[in-house]
């Protein structure tokens, strides 16, 4: 078939996609093949992308489930347990991870929500543009850079020790942009009629935002917080720089070391003895469980959202 034939074919061929009127509606073979090929490639890409997810989950679950099902895993720490010994649990690391996440959220949520309110309700002009740009930059900051910044400020400049609170400060930087973006998205979906109705009743702007806009967008904010928590709980780089591991239970964020799940994995992964290897995968499974639960909760809350886009 010559090129001219192919062109005229493709020009006419599509008038009828069924291909019943011969000579007038015939789709050229190569176009049809390419079309089918594209369909196959798309399916293949999707299945290929699912492969690592399934493989990771399978690995972590099969290797970690044994220890995780033991009650002591959730109640005991690794105090006085060496890598040769079986036993002990991850209670110290779970508690450390949750405590740091809580303190981080307490700092990051107000800043993030207020920034989003500024961007949606108040921000006009160059300052708002700058804030929005900086939120994007903050989204892309590698966690190790955030950790180095806190190290440069907290340890080198102010002369404090490496403690849990410093880790929280680094995590705040990573959590703020997640909260700003999800809150912002939700606030934009709040219908203006609600705001106008409130203004028409003589309600001041700040009360309108606090009593009308925020409650309407509440579920979206919760989703943002849950997804933000899921992101920071798995971060390891700030812990390597600022939060050394310990096998003991610790509750003081301002003094001494504090264990977390990522550093527990990181400490056990270099060991070659079976009990430590088991602990590596069990703590990995615990971490994934916590994060997946937060993620699913976030999505569920998003689905029951009051504001419909």
């Amino acid at each position, binding site marked *: 078939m010559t090129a001219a034939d192919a062109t005229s074919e493709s*020009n006419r061929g599509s008038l009828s*996609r069924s291909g019943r009127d011969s000579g007038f509606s015939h789709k050229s073979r190569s176009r049809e093949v*390419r079309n089918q*090929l*594209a*369909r196959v490639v*798309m*399916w293949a890409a*999707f299945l290929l*992308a699912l492969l*690592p*997810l399934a*493989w*990771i989950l399978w690995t*972590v679950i099969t290797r970690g489930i044994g220890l995780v099902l033991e009650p002591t895993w959730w109640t005991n720490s690794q105090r006085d347990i060496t890598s040769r010994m079986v036993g002990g649990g991850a209670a110290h690391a779970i508690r450390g991870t949750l405590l740091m996440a809580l303190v981080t959220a307490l700092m990051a949520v107000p800043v993030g929500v*207020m*920034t989003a*309110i*500024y*961007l949606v*309700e*108040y*921000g006009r002009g160059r*300052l708002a543009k700058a*804030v*929005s*740009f*900086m939120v*994007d*930059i*903050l989204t*892309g*900051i*590698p966690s*190790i*850079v955030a950790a*180095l*910044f806190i*190290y*440069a*400020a907290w340890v080198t*400049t102010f002369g404090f020790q490496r403690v849990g609170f410093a880790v929280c400060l680094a995590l705040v930087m990573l959590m*703020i942009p*997640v909260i700003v*973006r999800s809150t912002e998205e939700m606030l*934009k979906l709040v219908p*203006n009629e609600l705001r106008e109705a409130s*203004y028409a009743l003589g309600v*001041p702007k*700040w009360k309108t935002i606090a009593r009308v806009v925020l409650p309407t967008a509440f579920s*979206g904010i919760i*989703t943002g917080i849950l*997804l933000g928590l899921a992101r920071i709980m798995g971060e*390891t*780089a700030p812990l*390597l720089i600022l939060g050394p591991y310990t096998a003991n239970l610790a509750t003081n964020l301002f003094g001494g070391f504090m264990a977390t799940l*990522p550093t527990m994995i990181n400490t056990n*992964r270099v060991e070659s003895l079976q009990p430590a290897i088991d602990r590596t995968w069990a703590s990995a499974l615990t971490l994934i469980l916590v994060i*997946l639960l937060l993620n699913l909760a976030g*999505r569920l809350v998003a689905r029951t959202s009051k504001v419909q886009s």
Partner: protein
Amino acid sequence: MPSITGASVVDHVRDPQGDGTPQGDRASTGRLGDRLFGGTAKGAGVLVIALVTLTAVFLLSQALPALSKDGANFLTSTEWDVSGSHPRFGIANLLWVTVASSVIAMIIAVPVGVCVALFVTEYSPPWLSAPAAGLIDLLAAVPSIIYGIWGAFVFGPHITGLQSLISKLFGWLPFFDNDTGGVSSSGTIFFIGIVLSIMVLPIVTALSREVFAQTPVTHKEGALALGATKWEMIRTSVLPFGKPGVISASMLGLGRALGETVAVLIILSSLASDTKWSWSVFNGGETFASKIANNAAEFDSPQKSGAFIAAGLVLFILTFVVNAIARVVIERRKAFVE
């Protein structure tokens, strides 16, 4: 649903309903409560700007003294010796490994990510579309340390066969050279590139998918009405429309790959300091992030930590530029759409 990339197309549309928000200060009454609340909101915004600015300032102020004592050229030297009174350190090695692994990651993740995004928006049966998108997003929820141990202990041992095959076929290229015998190890730049591609895939997919879904139905129906097959319709209307989004998504993914720390730290085997330079991707090495994390325990003097902070500063600048490009590209698209 907030997107996992943090950057959403919705972010850049001022009001989705199309009717203007009551303009900020005209709606406010100047009461004390209003001024306090507005001031707090503004303060939070300024704090965000301050955080990024302070990051640059602190990194710079700690890096400069160390850089002034550096006996080697910081940008071109491959040495890294930060102890003693005559430190000599440069980032050439780190820059090469960081860029090489990220480029490999993007070469794999961008085509696959775009195809997955097209699958979700165009090809999947309707009932599968939302769960498929959710599953791909879950890849982003897996912590990087788990990618690290999975890559090093589970996936890694399977990769050496592929590596020796590539090196046998393309060994004449300097990139796939096996002069260091690295193909038999899984601690290579090549392998970490593959793992990074899995980690950035959800980022590329999420934003691309969002842009593809916004292709005007008139464009798509126009193409179909002219007799295009589904693939031709995608090629002529969906892909051109989504191109800025794909570029932007790739940049965000690249930023993530450049800064990834723990997975690289676990998987990539670091080299002895006297190893000779090689362009081969079947070689170990260290990226900016993994170098810093590897040596975190050594931060005992301002000189040492200063050198690592200088490396961190370069990483900060790299990711800043990449993310800024991503943002500019999507902003220009917005101007085009409106």
